[in-house]
């Protein structure tokens, strides 16, 4: 009987304690809300060429694109940072005749465009830093190191240039764990450069969809 009373007493007491502690569990905001902090993201990107770049040079989607970014997240909704990346477009055309003024070339053409964009960006976040979903919009500007190579058969015609680059994007961060350091980043972004050469008459442009993993620390 004594044992039974003890058990009832303990269980009631425990429930009471449990009920009392519940609202106290989280009283301080997370350090990510209290302090400015850093955030690094590695992204894999699929890119769809757009506009005249797609019409006159390469219209094939590319999945050989990567980037790394580092950003500084302020206490308000803004973050700024830098991003360096690598992207590669390629298209093969079957043998065809290319007519010059008094010259005719017959060749299998392989068109390529390699880019290493280096950009600074600013993000505006719509929800707080402890929210497990953090949608944002982004604008970016910088330069892109571009290699334009067209192969006629095994012969190459190459042009390398540094061109201004810019972009606007919309995306969201998803935390794996509440107030955790790691999370998923999904972003859709329009990116363009003012590179003009031969087939590319009006600069390059593409719609990039990327999936990345981020880590944040303070």
């Amino acid at each position, binding site marked *: 009987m004594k044992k039974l009373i003890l058990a009832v007493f303990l269980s009631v007491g425990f429930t009471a304690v449990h009920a009392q502690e519940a609202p106290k569990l989280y009283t301080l905001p997370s350090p990510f809300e209290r302090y400015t902090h850093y955030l690094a993201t590695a992204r894999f990107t699929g890119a769809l060429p757009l506009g005249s770049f797609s019409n006159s040079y390469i219209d094939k989607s590319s999945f050989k694109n990567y980037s790394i970014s580092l950003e500084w997240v302020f206490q308000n909704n803004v973050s700024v940072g830098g991003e*360096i990346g690598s992207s590669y477009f*390629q298209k093969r055309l079957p043998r065809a005749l290319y007519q010059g003024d008094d010259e005719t070339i017959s060749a299998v053409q392989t068109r390529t465009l*390699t880019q290493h964009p280096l950009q600074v960006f600013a993000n505006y976040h719509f929800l707080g830093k402890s929210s497990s979903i953090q949608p944002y919009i982004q604008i970016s500007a910088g330069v892109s190191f571009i290699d334009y190579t067209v192969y006629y058969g095994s012969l190459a015609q190459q042009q390398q240039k540094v061109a201004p680059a810019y972009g606007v994007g919309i995306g969201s961060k998803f935390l794996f764990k509440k107030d955790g350091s790691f999370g998923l980043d999904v972003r859709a972004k329009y990116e363009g450069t003012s590179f003009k050469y031969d087939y590319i008459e009006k600069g390059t442009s593409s719609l990039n969809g990327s999936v990345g993993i981020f880590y944040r620390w303070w």
Partner: protein
Amino acid sequence: MVCDNVKVILKNKKYREIFKSKMFKIKFRLLNILNSKLKMLKITSLLILFAAIGFSSCSNDPISDLSTEETLVYLTNRDKTADYAQYKTFSIVDSVLVVENNRSGTALTEIDRDLLQRIVTNMQSLGYTYVSPKSNPDVGINAAWVTNTQLNVVSQPSYYGNYWGGGGYGYGYPSYYQYYETSESYWLISMVDFKNPNTVDKTYKVIWDAQIRGAGIGSTQLIDNMVDSIFSQSSYLKIK
């Protein structure tokens, strides 16, 4: 250049790992040295990861999947002022001119014979009549195998790891250079106007020429195909 550097780093990592496993077996080194080496390996792995992400695109070889036939490029040039209908007869050189940088000679190998024979066949089907070189042909055909060779030099990057510890010392190596040679060959076929010589300059005008370039130009199986291609893309040569 960046790609080469990355490759060298990867190689060094492999060697280092082999070395390390040996060292473990012999128990030759003290534990703290091994620890520092492990740390270094971690850093190296990070660097390699970064390099792999950042520069993976430069390891692309976009034309490695081309077949021999697909590597071939046919370039033809015409003299727009020439009226090809005025020519009736042609002749052709009896062997191929071989030009290497500034030296030249002649050759008549199997592929050369096939080339010359196929040119004759094509010219005849375009309506020209073959005559011997001594019978005053209206046009003459020259065929040449041209090779340009260049010597290039690059400085060799230095990666020595830090197996010997170093104790703050680096390596005092002189600058090493690597030489490599590139050479490109192509067929050059030209058509010369003997009917209207320039009597002032004493020259004959080249009214058409063709270059065959690419990795497959030495292929005896493809030589007929090559010759047919340069003529089929020059339909203005047809006189009948």
